[in-house]
């Protein structure tokens, strides 16, 4: 066996070991590296009240209500598996609206309502011109379809 081949085998073995280690580390991190809890995670794992977390999901259509004081809003966050009520006082980002994604920082109170101290709008992977606003994106076919 030539020295060149020895080096090749050694380098490839090292590379396989490295990528294996990287993948193992990444899969072990799975939940720790998650940026936010989805409502489904909260339901299955349980989050104690008062623990500061981020909650991410979609704002349920028709759930957004503004309190009489003008700065407090309440809304429901869902991930399709579970829905939790949330409340926030302050200025929400421009892209925050019903039917789109949100990441809220805060904690649960004892009644199970998420009290947010900060709101971030989560943008999805859809990009389309304004003229197409009456249309929606089909997750399974990955095509933009006209809303019925």
């Amino acid at each position, binding site marked *: 066996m030539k020295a060149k081949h020895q080096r090749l085998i050694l380098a490839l073995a090292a590379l396989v070991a490295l990528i294996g280690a990287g993948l193992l580390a990444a899969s072990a991190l799975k939940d720790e590296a*998650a940026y936010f809890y989805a409502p489904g995670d909260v339901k299955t794992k349980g989050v104690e009240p008062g623990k500061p977390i981020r909650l991410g999901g979609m704002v349920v259509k028709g759930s957004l209500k503004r309190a009489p004081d003008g700065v407090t809003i309440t809304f429901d966050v869902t991930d399709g598996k579970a829905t939790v009520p949330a409340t926030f006082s302050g200025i929400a980002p*421009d892209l*925050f609206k019903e039917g789109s994604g949100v990441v809220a920082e805060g904690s649960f109170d004892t009644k199970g309502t998420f009290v947010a101290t900060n709101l971030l709008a*989560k943008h999805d992977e859809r990009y389309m011109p304004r003229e197409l606003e009456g249309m929606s994106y089909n997750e399974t076919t990955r095509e933009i379809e006209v809303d019925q």
Partner: protein
Amino acid sequence: MHRFANPARFLKIARPLTGWLFWPGLALLLAGCACGLWLTPADYLQGQTVRILYIHVPAAWLGMGGWTGIAIAALMQLVWRHPLAAVAGRAIAAPGALFTAICLATGSIWGRPTWGTWWEWDGRMTSMLVLLFLYLGYIALANASARQGAGQGGVSNVTAIFGLVGAVNIPIINRSVVWWNSLHQGPSITMRGSSIDMAILWPLGLTLLGFTLWFGAIVLMRMRAILAQNKVEARMQRLARG
């Protein structure tokens, strides 16, 4: 590949190729940016800020592509002892770091109006920042362990090994939005198609190709500069010896 191990033969091809990459690349990226600024419609949600995509995406692609190039060069250096691979690794590092920084900066500028924050420690942003630090580490290590003698100008074997190890981060960046809940959106362009409407998407093809050609031209220029520097030093040494 060993046909090009000879720097003279490499230079014969690299010299004209630099111009062929540089000028069409510059024309394409300027045309793409102009089309992206004036011809495409605004996004239904993001409005005008969507246009940063024409810089942000090529920058991310070249930041990650640059390190992939470093890893391939490192493998060729360590296994085949290819003398130009060491030079290529060093030439790629600085533009790779620059494009990674551009990607982070444009992402941050876009994040403020879209998400409502300049920076968050989610999987995609953190792994991209790690890539920038890897580049800086690579450059520092290459400078600290500079080669003397025949292979000078190229990176040392230790630096090449670092380049190979750092490649682990590339699939992590790519998969970060799939594996973990993240603030950054999932992939828009996949094997199954694109969720970016064609009306917004098309200039991205121009800037992607343009920036990539340009990156190639920059790398070739830097490789030629390193080889020229070697020649200068070899001549100075000959002169010093009398």
